[in-house]
Structures are given as C-alpha cells and as structure tokens.
C-alpha cells in the first residue's frame, strides 16, 4: 500500500513490492535487487510469472480512486482464493472432473462429464479471461510495457499450444468412459450439458478466437444433431460467435504460388485461422440453408441469415445469403418477411459498409424475383427500394475534381516559374525537394489504397446498374398491370378469385416512381407518361362497369397514377411547362367515382394538392369546372373530404379572380361563359362543362353544415367576391385539412353520439328530423333483434308445453282404448263362456 508507483520505464526490472499478493514476496531488499540484476538468466522465470500481475496492480493503484481501491483489493483477494482453490481441486479431482464451472455468483461447480478437449479449452479460457482482465485493467501502457506484454502473450500461447497437443492424445483413452457415463445420463441432463457446452465453446471462441478457432467445428457438429431445441440453440450461438469474430475484410483463397511460398509463423497462423473460419462459416451456411427449407427451423434459419447479412455484408458467401433473403422477401409468413425486408433495407441504407456491391446484387435479385413470379409478390418486396439512396452529386464532384486539377496545373506552373529562379541557385535544395515530392506521392498512393475511398467511376457504374434494375422492375410492374387490365374485359369476371391481388405491386411501384422520377432518362419519360395515362384512365373505356369488375384499378390507385405523373413532370421538366390535360380530365371524372368509405381520403387530398393547388397555370374554364365539381361533391361527402375539397376551392378562387364570377348571383355567366350556354354536370371534359353558366349554390347549403369548421369556410368562400383584391392566401393544404378533420372526427365521435342522445332527450321532436329518425330506426332495429330472440325463446317454451300436452293426451287416449279393448275381450270371454255354458 505504502509503495510509490514505479517510474514506468523500469518494469523490466524485477518488481519491487507487489503488496498483499503474498506475504513471502514482500521483503525485497536492495541486495536482492542487485542479485537479480547480476543473475538475470535465473530470474527470467520469475519475471515472466510476475510482471503481469504487478504491472496490473501498479497501474490500477495509480489509476483508480481511493473509493474504488478497497473494492479492487477485495476482488483480487477473491480471485486469488479462487485460483488457489481451482489449483487444489485440479490436483485432487481426477482429470475428467477437473473442469469447474463458474456461475455468476462466483461459486464453482464441478461437472461430472466433459470431454478432455474441453478441459484444455476451459483452461485456456481461464487464462485468457485473466488476460482480458489485465487488458482492461491496464489503461495506460507505455511502449516498453506493451512490448513486454506481447512477448509474454506469445510465450503463453506457445505453452497453450503444447498443452493442447498433450491433451489431444488423451481423448481416445477417455472415450470409453465417456460413453458409459453418457448412457447413464437422462435426456434432460444431456440437454443441459449440451447447453452448457455450447455456452462454454462460445465463450472460449469469443475470448480468444485465434487459438480456439477449431472449436467452431465442434459447435457446428452440435448444430447438426437431431434434437430440435439443441439445433436451434446451436445455430443461434454460432450466429453470435460468427457475428463477433468475422473480420472486417473479405478472405481470399490462396493461390498455389502463395501456398508454396515460405512464410513466417504469424502469417501461417493467420492463414490457418482464416481458412478454418472460412470452412466453418461455409458449413454453417450450408446447414442454415438446408434448415431453411424445413418449416420447423425456417424462422430460426432466416433470422440467422438475416443477422449475418446485416452484420457482415462484406464477407465471403454474400451471394448465398442474399439469395436466400431475397427468396424469402415475399414469404407468406409475416415475421419472416418483415425480417428479410428490414435486412434488405438496412443493407440499402448502410451501403458504405459493403461499398454498394451488395446493393446492386440485392436489387438485381429482387428484379429477377419479380420477373420470375410475374409480379405476384407481396408489396413489401418492392417497398424496400424506397430506402435506396442515389448520390446525384457524383457527376458534380467529378467536375469539381476537374476544376481542381486545372487550378492545380495553373498553380504548379506559377510555382515552377517562381521556383526556377531559386532552384538554379541551389541544386541541393532542388534534389531535396524532389525527394520530398516523391515521398509525398508515395504516401498519397498508400493512403488511397488504405483508406478504401471508393472509386468514383466504379461507384457511378454501380449506381447506374442499381437504377436500371430498379426501373426495370418498376416498368415491368406497370406493364404487367397494363396487360392484366387490358385482358380483363375479354377474360370476363370468371376469374375473380385472384382479383384483390392481381397487381399488389402497383402501389409501391408508383411510390417509387414518384421518388426516383428525377433519375429517369428523358427518353423513357414519354413511355412512362403514356403508361401512366392509360393506367389513370383505367377502365374509363368501360367506365360504368368499373364497379362491377373488382379487378379494375381502384380509384385510389388511379388517383395515385395522376399524382405520380404530376410529380414526374414537376421534378424533371421545369424547363418546359407542359399542360397535363388528360390527367386533369381523369381527375375530373375520378372525383365522381370517389366514395368516402371505400377509397383513401389521403390520396384524394394529395391529388387535389398536387394537381390543383400547386399547379401554376390554369385554364379558366377548367378551373371553373373543377370548382363547381368540388363544391358539388363536398355537399355529399363526409366532413374531412368536403373540408379538403373546400380548401381547394378557396385556393382556386383566390388564385383565379375571374372564377369568382361563379359566386355572383348571375346565371348564364355573362360574356366569359364561352360556347356552352348551359352547365352540363355530367360532362367528362372539364373545359366543356360550361361551369361558368352555373352558380355555386352549394356554398349556401354548406354554410348551414352541422360541422362548424365547414360552415365557416363555406361562408368565407361565399363572401370572397365582396372582399375584392384581398391577398389572403390560406396556408393550409387540403391534405392538412383532411388530416385535421379526420382526427377531430375520431376524437369527437363518441362524444357527439352522447350529445345527440342528450339533444334527443331534451327536445323530443328534434330539430333535425332526419338524424332523429335515423337514430330511432337504429334503436328500433337494435330492439327488434333482442325482441326476436326473446320471442323466439318464449315461443319455443310455449311450443314445448303444447307438444307435451298433446303427447299426454295421446297417451291417455291409447291407454283408454287399450283398457276398453281389454274390457271388450273380457266381455267377449265371458260371453263365450256363457254361450258355452248355455
């Protein structure tokens, strides 16, 4: 305790006083020191044994605070005691039982059965764990110390090697005993043992993978056994081990030439380690893939594969992993599919981990998968593309590089000019500078090789490959949908069984197209727009039959098509302002087909926002037609949808001053009414509907809407013409409005119900007759059901009673008749008797 911490350079010397380690060593005088110095050869052993613990101690004392000191010492005492114990026990107990298991409490258990190989492993792990402790304990090591330590480690490793060699001879002799003992064990104990063994092996591998790499094979052997739970455990523990010990590089198989070459011991060791790891990994993967086909193990196997792929996308056999993951990506099992999808997603997101190669492979595999299954996959399998990210700046950065180069050249020239004068004066300086520049270049080259900065060209190529695969998939889905819709009318409604899933991939495909539209080549754009237009028109040729044929695209899907077309246009084609008239026509007609319950309100709101609110230019006639139609449908929609529609109407009216004529009380529309003198509500073309000939009378109705928000906005719109030239743009978008309203509705719905009831109670003949009648109808129907039940039970009871009575009556009758018959017989007998007598 009282010892000062040594100056650290002197560690090679025999240590001063490792206090409290053991009493014997405490007294070391200067003479001793001298002695040791003189006879260093003899002292070598001692120093080899002790320096480690001493350095540990010294540094610990130096680094830890006083509070921790006591705890530290306590721990050490315990450890020492344990060590002694184990030593003793190892002396006493015979070799088979020599391996104690330490629980978390620190107690030791002696196992009755174990293989001797394990024994060595355990010993090693013991040693290694203390090494590990030492590592942790030594916070700051000087170089000298580190070197010394390394040497020691090597020595230890050698020793271990010898030990392993020794112990490996033994198993043959022990095998017989082992077998006997094994037979005696019950199944449960065997299971427990296996578990323990797995834990041990795993622990050993984790603590020192280099020397214990052989144990992998043993673990794999365990994983190949028949017991289901053991196999699962084995797989999972192997997973944990592999996840930890797989190196951060790809292992390359050695060429023959390399094999022939002589290498140092460390390299040999490394090679051995790598090849064993690789073969074990391969065996493990094979096992996993075999098991993946068995329904019992599928989940575990897929989970292992996913985790492996996620953790080590750079490592060997990636293709196999990717293949299995992609195969399972549209599995019918929810859990498996989610696992696979999330793995692929993380693969896409962290593509720095594998340099993007895995991304390309995965995307290509998914594309092939889609092709093979003819677009009949789960939507999630395409949704993963959404997490792809493409670096648009690659080309830019290259340009910047070019600029740099040019600049550098200029600079160099200037420099050369400047320097030439000086250099003539001093030749030596020149040579020195050349040397410097050479060195710098070399260093730069090394740095580039080591830093793994991805080559820009390569990266670009990979990106374009990925993109082409993604778009191939998207176009395939579109085409497939087109074909299936085209075939439909001919195919009739006979095959309506697969109606729902006929194009499951369309929705994610459209989403993806909207997201990556800025990356599409302009040449494809035309085709894309044509496809989208056809899809958006959907079944407009057979417009009325769309409800009858469930196979047709739904309204939301068609709306989505319109939205995507607009997004594509907006992202790419800012330069040329193109009017997407056809899509407006489709939207105009889709508004009528929209049903609040059936279709998604969010999609409608998004379409309104994208197509009407954000589009800059509008045909006047078209705008008026849209305003009129939106007002019309907002009368019959639920409050969220009508709110969205009204917000759009307001927006359009604010932007288009001329359309405010719709608010005037002047039918006929005046001079701007155009050719069509009469409003045609059923017209399919917005510019031919003659909306200017009508008036927005719907607003008057809506201002009496039961929902306060809608009535306010309706009256605000109808007052707009009075407040002329007021530049007041509402910031709220239709989407936002819809969301707000639907949220509000959800919150209000239980309350509003109770309010209604209250109202009803208060005013028996309610102000809103339709609502009240609805309510009463509801309640009556509710009552009817119960009444019917009660009546039925009552009727059954009555029926039973009656039946009972009837049966009884019949019984009585029969008994009566029987008795009568008996009497009659008696009488007959008597009669005959009397006759005979007579």
């Amino acid at each position, binding site marked *: 305790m009282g010892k000062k911490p040594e100056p650290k350079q002197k560690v090679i010397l025999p240590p001063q006083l490792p206090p409290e380690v053991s009493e014997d060593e405490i007294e070391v005088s200067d003479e001793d020191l001298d002695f040791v110095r003189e006879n260093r050869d003899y002292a070598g052993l001692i120093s080899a044994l002790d320096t480690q613990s001493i350095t540990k101690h010294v540094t610990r004392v130096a680094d830890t605070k006083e509070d921790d000191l006591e705890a530290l010492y306590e721990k050490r005492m315990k450890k020492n005691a344990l060590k002694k114990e184990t030593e003793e026990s190892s002396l006493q107990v015979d070799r088979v039982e020599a391996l104690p298991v330490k629980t978390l409490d620190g107690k030791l258990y002696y196992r009755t059965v174990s293989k001797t190989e394990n024994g060595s492993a355990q010993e090693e792990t013991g040693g290694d764990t203390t090494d590990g402790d030492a590592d942790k304990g030594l916070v700051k090591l000087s170089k000298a110390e580190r070197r010394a330590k390394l040497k020691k480690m090597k020595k230890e490793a050698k020793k271990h090697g010898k030990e392993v060699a020794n112990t490996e001879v033994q198993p043959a002799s022990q095998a017989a005993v082992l077998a006997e003992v094994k037979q005696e064990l019950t199944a449960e104990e065997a299971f427990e043992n296996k578990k323990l063994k797995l834990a041990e092996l795993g622990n050993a591998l984790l603590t020192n993978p280099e020397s214990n790499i052989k144990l992998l094979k043993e673990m794999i052997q365990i994983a190949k056994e028949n017991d289901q739970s053991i196999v699962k455990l084995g797989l999972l523990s192997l997973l944990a081990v592999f996840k930890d010990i797989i190196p951060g590089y790809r292992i390359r198989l050695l060429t023959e030439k390399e094999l022939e070459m002589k290498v140092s011991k460390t390299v040999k060791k490394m090679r051995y380690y790598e090849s064993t790891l690789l073969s074990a990994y391969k065996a493990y993967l094979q096992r996993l893939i075999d098991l993946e086909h068995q329904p019992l193990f599928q989940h575990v196997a897929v989970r292992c594969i996913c985790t492996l792929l996620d953790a080590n996308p750079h490592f060997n056999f990636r293709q196999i992993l990717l293949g299995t993951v992609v195969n399972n990506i549209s599995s019918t099992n929810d859990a498996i599919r989610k696992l696979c999808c999330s793995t692929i997603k993380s693969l896409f997101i962290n593509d720095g981990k594998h340099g993007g190669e895995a991304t390309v492979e995965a995307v290509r595999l998914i594309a092939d998968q889609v092709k093979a299954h003819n677009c009949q996959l789960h939507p999630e399998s395409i949704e993963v593309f959404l997490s792809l990210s493409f670096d648009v700046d690659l080309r830019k950065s290259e340009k910047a590089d070019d600029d740099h180069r040019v600049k550098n050249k200029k600079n160099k020239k200037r420099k050369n000019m400047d320097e030439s004068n000086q250099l003539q004066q001093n030749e030596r300086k020149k040579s020195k500078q050349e040397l410097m520049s050479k060195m710098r270049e070399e260093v730069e080259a090394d740095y580039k090789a080591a830093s793994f900065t991805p080559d820009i060209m390569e990266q670009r190529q990979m990106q374009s490959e990925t993109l082409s695969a993604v778009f191939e998939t998207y176009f395939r889905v579109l085409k497939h949908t087109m074909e299936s819709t085209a075939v439909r009318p001919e195919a009739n409604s006979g095959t309506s069984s697969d109606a729902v899933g006929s194009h499951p991939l369309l929705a994610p495909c459209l989403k993806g197209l909207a997201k990556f539209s800025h990356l599409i080549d*302009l040449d494809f*754009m*035309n085709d894309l*727009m044509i496809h989208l237009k056809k899809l958006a028109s959907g079944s407009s040729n057979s417009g009325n039959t769309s409800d009858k044929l469930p196979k047709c695209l739904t309204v939301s899907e068609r709306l989505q098509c319109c939205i995507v077309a607009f997004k594509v246009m907006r992202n790419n*084609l800012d*330069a*040329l*302002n*193109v*009017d*997407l*008239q*056809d899509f407006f026509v489709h939207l105009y007609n889709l508004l009528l087909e929209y049903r609040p319950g059936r279709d998604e309100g969010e999609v409608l709101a998004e379409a309104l926002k994208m197509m009407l609110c954000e589009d800059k*230019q509008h*045909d*006047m*006639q078209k705008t008026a037609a849209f305003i009129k139609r939106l007002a019309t449908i907002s009368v019959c929609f639920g409050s969220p949808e009508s709110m969205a529609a009204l917000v759009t109407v307001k927006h359009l009216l604010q932007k288009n001053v001329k359309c405010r004529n719709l608010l005037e009380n002047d039918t006929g529309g005046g001079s701007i009414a*155009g*050719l*069509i*003198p009469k409003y045609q509500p059923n017209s399919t*073309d917005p*510019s*031919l509907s003659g909306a200017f000939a009508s008036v927005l009378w719907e607003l008057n109705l809506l201002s009496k809407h039961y929902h306060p928000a809608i009535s306010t906005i309706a009256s605000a719109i109808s007052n707009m013409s009075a407040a002329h030239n007021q530049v007041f743009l509402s910031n709220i978008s239709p989407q936002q409005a819809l969301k707000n309203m639907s949220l509000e509705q959800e919150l209000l719905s239980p309350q509003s119900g109770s309010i209604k009831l209250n109202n009803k109670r208060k005013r028996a003949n309610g102000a809103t007759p339709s609502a009240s009648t609805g309510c009463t109808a509801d309640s009556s129907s509710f009552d009817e059901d119960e009444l019917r039940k009660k009546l039925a039970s009552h009727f059954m009871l009555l029926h039973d009673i009656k039946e009972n009575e009837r049966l009884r009556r019949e019984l009585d009758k029969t008994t009566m008749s029987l008795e009568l018959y008996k009497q009659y017989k008696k009488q007959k007998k008597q009669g005959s008797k009397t006759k005979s007598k007579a």
Partner: protein
Amino acid sequence: MRPLDETETTAVFEKLFKFVGNNLKNIVENPSHEGPDSNSGRYCFRLNKNKIYYVSESLVKRATNIARPNLVSLGTCIGKYTHGGSFHLTVQALNLLAANAKHKVWLKPQSEMSFLYGNHVLKSALGRITENIAPGDGVVVFSMSDVPLGFGVAAKSTQDCRKLDPNGIVVLHQADIEGSQKSSQPQHI
C-alpha cells in the same frame, strides 16, 4: 347555299378533327338555342359561294328565304374552298376551335405580338404546351390569360420541344386574330 356533299364533308371534318380530335362530336351535336322553337335544334354545315358556314338549323330555315346570289353570309364562316379545291380553315373558326381544342399552346406575353404579326411560334415564346402533340397536329394558340390568338400546325412533337433550341419553330402560323390575310395565302398543309 347547299349542304355539303360527301367529299366536302370528309374534307371539312378531317381538317377540324386535326384540331379538336374527339371533340368534333361536340361541335356537331352542339344544341342551338336560337329561334322560336322551344326544343333546341342543332348546328349544321352549309356551303355558300365556296365558303363553309357553321349555322344553326333555325337560321338555315330562315335563310332559305333569300336567293343564292343575294346571300352574302350566314352563321359563322369557318373556312373556304380554294381554287385548287382544297379546304382551308379561316380565322373565324377560331372561337369554335378554341372551345374544343385538343392541343394548345400558350404564348409568353412578350411574344404575343410577334405571333400576331404572322410569325411562327418559336420555342422561346412558349409559355406552356399540352403534352402529346405530334407533328402535323392542329394547335390553337392562346395568350397566357387564355385568350385565343390564332391557330397553326405543330412542327415538332412535345417531346422534341424539350431538346429544341430556343429559336426552333414549334408551331407554324396559319391564322390569327390580328390580320386574316394570311389565311388566304397558300398554307403549309
């Protein structure tokens, strides 16, 4: 004044179809609210002195009162037959075309006058353009505030317009509201 014969009808309809596409149906079936009849009649095409007129039926009936040589005009003149025997639309048809146009081009304000002086529409003048215009389609030209200015023939498709240089011709001028002389000159189709 007489109804068109078959060849004349196809010629007129083909020309109109180039501009209005399927909306031709609207033009033909457009109900007229002229005349004393309570049930609205239709519009029809009549030929008078090499000119084609778009007239409501009630007006046709009344026009029969006037002798052919004395009848100068009736309804809307939409085009005429040239001496070569081909049919040309005149600028008077603009109102009809603009209401039903399938392909439209909007001009930037600064280039409106250039068009009205009889120049072709250049790419730099384009404010907006409808998609899917094919070369040879009839195009109605509007100002940015949706006032029809004239019509012409598309020289380039919408797709090609993207790559066109700013001085490339997009729409060939046929007729405009400034001076209708152009319509009497030999035309591009």
